[in-house]
């Protein structure tokens, strides 16, 4: 990137976009292959993927990338969001200095994120987590001319460092007992000793903090609101990567050896707390990006609730078949929807900041007169986030409501109330930012530059597509992903068996 940037800034941008576009292409091709042929495994540094356990070693020493339906589901989210954010950044970062570093760090962040989602090795996951954390921290603090950017960056890096340290500690506990780092091999050998239980607690809490679950969420609005908008959107996908790591730990690494009911309820309780506290805190906010960041915490709660219900009934085949599977489908489906509509909301908020130079809602008013296109797309994202039909947010939330109701009606009622308050917070934003008479100071305001509009249009198109055809995601992506998570034996067999 720096070399390309020295030659020509357009060349540098083109290389960045082309790289991400090619990544997206590879991920789509791989997704198709996995849908047709099942799990794929690749051993780095080996002539053949089958050579995972050389006879002279008692454990696989190589880094193994393994991609099943859950991995590829996450990779699709990450690569798509990264590509859209990079297109957006061509306009939003145009006047910023240090763009060589920006694009380099962005590609590093995306690499870390995709690595986390595609590795089958727990130590390797830690390494990719660190790569994503360090580049993410630098990107949050990128615009150092704003006083709050370094503060947000510092918080992000400290939180990431604590989480990374705990993950490493947990890996140490597991490695010291089993001499293994491969997730499937570990899952096959795990005895659920006292040390394993401590490792589980460390891993679960570290990933929960990284995804911004209440009460470890306080860093998230501080970091998301000050990061360049394109980076905020990628960080959103990065939080989902931490959520993936949590689910992989719970389902594939520990699975039925642990008390699934306990951990399921922990996820449910933290999910409900995240939903309620996230949305009620959003009502208070005056900074548009902080408000959306709190809404992100709230939406993460929906995913934890849905998947938590599935985890809580994992050892009960009847309950799993009756509602647990659908609850998990809703939670997993909501992951992609969340990335799409929160991404759109952040991008629209970024357009406002790009044009008027403030995120303070109190200083806005009547922007809809000048930013008609942005206003409409913001409303679309807000409706999707609130779970209004026929958009994608509704499709995933209805799955969560119905299945969670059969598990515990009170939880479903809370979820519905939270969705109503979500709509209320976006009514507040739309009313105070876009409606009313045009304020004289915004008379010259122009619509967003083309790359920003293209990014928002792509996200809106996918939101509408997934809303009108939810079966595409549920049948082709969410159901296979849920099956990949709940069938621990198949996961172990596919990798240990050296498929």
């Amino acid at each position, binding site marked *: 990137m720096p070399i390309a940037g020295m030659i020509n800034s357009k060349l540098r941008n083109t290389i960045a976009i082309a790289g991400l576009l090619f990544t997206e292409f590879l991920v789509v091709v791989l997704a198709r292959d996995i849908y047709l042929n099942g799990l794929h495994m690749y051993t780095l540094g080996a002539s053949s993927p089958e050579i995972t356990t050389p006879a002279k070693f008692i454990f696989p020493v190589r880094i193994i990338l393994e991609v099943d339906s859950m991995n590829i589901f996450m990779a699709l989210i990450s690569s798509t969001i990264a590509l859209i954010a990079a297109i957006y950044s061509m306009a939003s970062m145009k006047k910023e200095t240090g763009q060589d570093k920006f694009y380099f760090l962005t590609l590093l962040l995306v690499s870390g994120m995709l690595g986390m989602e595609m590795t089958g090795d727990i130590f390797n996951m830690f390494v990719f987590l660190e790569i994503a954390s360090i580049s993410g921290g630098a990107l949050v603090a990128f615009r150092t001319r704003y006083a709050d950017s370094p503060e947000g960056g510092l*918080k992000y890096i400290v939180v990431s460092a604590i989480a990374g340290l705990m993950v490493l500690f947990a890996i140490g506990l597991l490695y010291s007992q089993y001499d293994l780092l491969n997730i499937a091999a570990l899952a096959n050998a795990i005895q659920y000793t006292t040390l394993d239980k401590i490792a589980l607690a460390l891993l679960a809490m570290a990933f929960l903090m990284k995804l911004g679950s209440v009460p470890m969420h306080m860093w998230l609005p501080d970091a998301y609101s000050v990061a360049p908008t394109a980076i905020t959107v990628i960080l959103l996908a990065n939080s989902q990567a931490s959520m993936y790591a949590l689910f992989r730990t719970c389902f594939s690494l520990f*699975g039925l050896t642990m008390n699934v009911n306990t951990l399921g309820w922990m996820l449910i309780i933290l999910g409900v707390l995240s939903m309620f506290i996230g949305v009620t805190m959003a009502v208070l906010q005056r900074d548009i990006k902080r408000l959306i960041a709190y809404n992100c915490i709230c939406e993460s709660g929906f995913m934890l609730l849905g998947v938590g219900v599935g985890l809580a009934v994992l*050892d009960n085949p009847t309950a799993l078949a009756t509602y647990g599977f659908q609850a998990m489908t809703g939670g997993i489906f909501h992951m992609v929807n969340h990335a799409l509509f929160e991404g759109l909301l952040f991008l629209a908020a970024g357009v406002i900041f790009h044009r008027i130079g403030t995120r303070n809602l109190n200083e806005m008013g009547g922007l809809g007169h000048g930013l008609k296109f942005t206003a409409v797309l913001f409303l679309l994202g807000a409706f999707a986030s609130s779970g209004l039909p026929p958009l994608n947010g509704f499709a995933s939330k209805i799955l969560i409501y119905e299945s969670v109701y059969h598990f515990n009606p009170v939880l479903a009622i809370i979820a519905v109330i939270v969705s109503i308050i979500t709509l209320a917070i976006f009514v507040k934003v739309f009313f105070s930012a876009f409606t009313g008479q045009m304020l004289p100071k915004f008379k010259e305001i122009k619509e967003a530059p083309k790359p920003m509009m293209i990014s928002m249009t792509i996200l809106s198109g996918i939101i509408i597509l997934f809303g009108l055809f939810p079966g595409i995601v549920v049948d082709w992506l969410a159901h296979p992903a849920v099956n990949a998570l709940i069938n621990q034996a198949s996961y172990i067999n596919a990798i240990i068996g050296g498929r």
Partner: protein
Amino acid sequence: MVILESGYAFWNPIIWVIALATVMILALYFRSRGQKNYKKGTAQTKIFLCGEDVPEPELGHIKASNVYWGFLETLKDYYYAILKPQTGIINDLALWFVLLLAIGAIVILATGAGAVAK
């Protein structure tokens, strides 16, 4: 691809879109049947605010911090309780993590193994 089966019911967005379009067409039709013989640019189309002058845009616009004032006032005790721990100080965040980790570890240690403990 269109119909989403939840196990208890189904969701068909296309039917919903058709229903919404029908309602919107009806609404537009009723609107088109309204009064048309008013005079534009006269008092008939001017904003009526109890006889008062309409304020300037800056003064007339309700700011975000005033929206939902009643909601926030009613729940002020709740907000006081949840805002108090949110200091923004990173040491406090680390303490929350330690607290949650301790609770999580105790609960996991106390509840025993799962169905397939080896």
